[in-house]
């Protein structure tokens, strides 16, 4: 207001109008009075004020029409797949964790043996067999993929782990172990987070290099 509450210049008024302000939103009664007085005597500024109000209204209309816009779901799915692929590549789990996994598998076999003996089930804790006859497709990252993987294993199929070799050869072995579902997730399989602490029995197909190649969930 340039220290003069009684007058408002065209420049001052247009700056306020351009910011979307209207006389009703004046900072003080004095500013409001000066604003209205200027509009009453200046046709240019009155037109300018109207113009800005109409422009804002039309922009709001466009904003409202497009406020719910968002990318299609497939974008997130593609990106999630990319993220999932980042983990194994960067961490090289089969290289770094291979030894740790072998130790874990051996320990798990011992645990399984004890558990199975206690439950009087006649399941061999460790069995060396020929490779399984069929494999399910490699797992995806979605919930649907988890269901698909579980259905495949329920049907007796092995599910290939990421990086697994479909035909592991005659030197492969099957280890029957008991582990938590979260361990399946660490192998790259889709797992329902809500059931990640649940214990399950699985057959692990271990290749000649000692690395797990595929998994079969036992019901």
């Amino acid at each position, binding site marked *: 207001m340039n220290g003069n509450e009684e007058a408002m210049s*065209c420049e001052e008024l*247009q700056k306020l109008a*351009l910011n979307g302000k209207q006389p009703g939103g004046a900072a003080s009664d004095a500013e409001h009075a000066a604003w209205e007085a200027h509009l009453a005597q200046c*046709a*240019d*500024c009155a*037109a*300018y004020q*109207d*113009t*800005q109000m*109409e*422009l*804002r209204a*039309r*922009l709001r*209309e*466009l*904003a*409202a*029409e*497009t*406020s*719910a*816009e*968002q*990318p*299609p779901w497939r*974008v*997130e799915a*593609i*990106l*999630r797949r*990319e*993220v*999932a*692929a*980042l*983990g*194994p*590549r*960067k*961490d090289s789990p089969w290289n770094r964790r291979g030894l740790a996994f072998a130790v874990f598998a051996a320990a798990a076999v011992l645990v399984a043996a004890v558990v199975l003996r206690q439950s009087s089930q006649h399941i061999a804790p460790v069995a060396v067999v020929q490779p399984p006859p069929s494999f399910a497709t490699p797992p995806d*990252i979605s919930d649907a993929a988890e269901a698909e993987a579980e259905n495949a294993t329920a049907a007796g199929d092995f599910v290939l782990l990421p990086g697994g070799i479909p035909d592991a050869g005659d030197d492969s072995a099957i280890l029957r172990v008991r582990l938590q579902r979260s361990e399946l997730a660490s192998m790259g399989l889709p797992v329902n987070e809500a059931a990640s602490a649940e214990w399950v029995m699985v057959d692990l197909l271990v290749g000649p290099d000692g690395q797990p190649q595929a998994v079969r969930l036992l019901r």
Partner: protein
Amino acid sequence: MGTMPTAQNPPEDDLLRRAARGEEAAFVRIYRAHQATLYRFALRMTGSAWNAEEIVQESFMALLHNAERYDASRGEVGAFLFGIARNFVRKRNARGPAELPFEDDGELPHGTSAAANAGARGPASPADLAEQTQRVEQVRRAVLELPEEFREAVALCDLEEMSYEEAAKLLDCPIGTIRSRLHRGRALLAAQLEILRDRPRKAVSR
């Protein structure tokens, strides 16, 4: 953009590091926090839903693969992401007009028809809806014809209703620059839309 970091809401720089290591849940949180704003920004800057989708995808890919280049002391993850997206927008726009402009496929982008919008406000006559659709399309085209810097300011402040401060953070420029670009952009829009027709004009020149 952004919420106060807590145990349940870890800071986005932490989420970004975890996402870049392959932690899907961390990535999803970042993605869902920014995807809609980024998409609408790209849509308003390119005028093409197809380009906007590509830009969102490319921007997040670049974010993941350049996470180590993010410096939290220079700004928020959202601003870093917007910087990436702006580069993709410029590249797309440099190739020429959008391949699939809104008006060519005979329908507005999903969820944006005047009819769909009017549903919440009560019944409107077909003539009213047609007029509204035409009016909105006119404004959309006028925004697309703005110089890029002005369009960015209008897209963020007028269409996303961000404050000058928020827009300045995302566009990595002073608030005064945003204000100036916005004012000039609005003046050009008013002229473009011929809102000033038949009225005495106190021009704000280009």
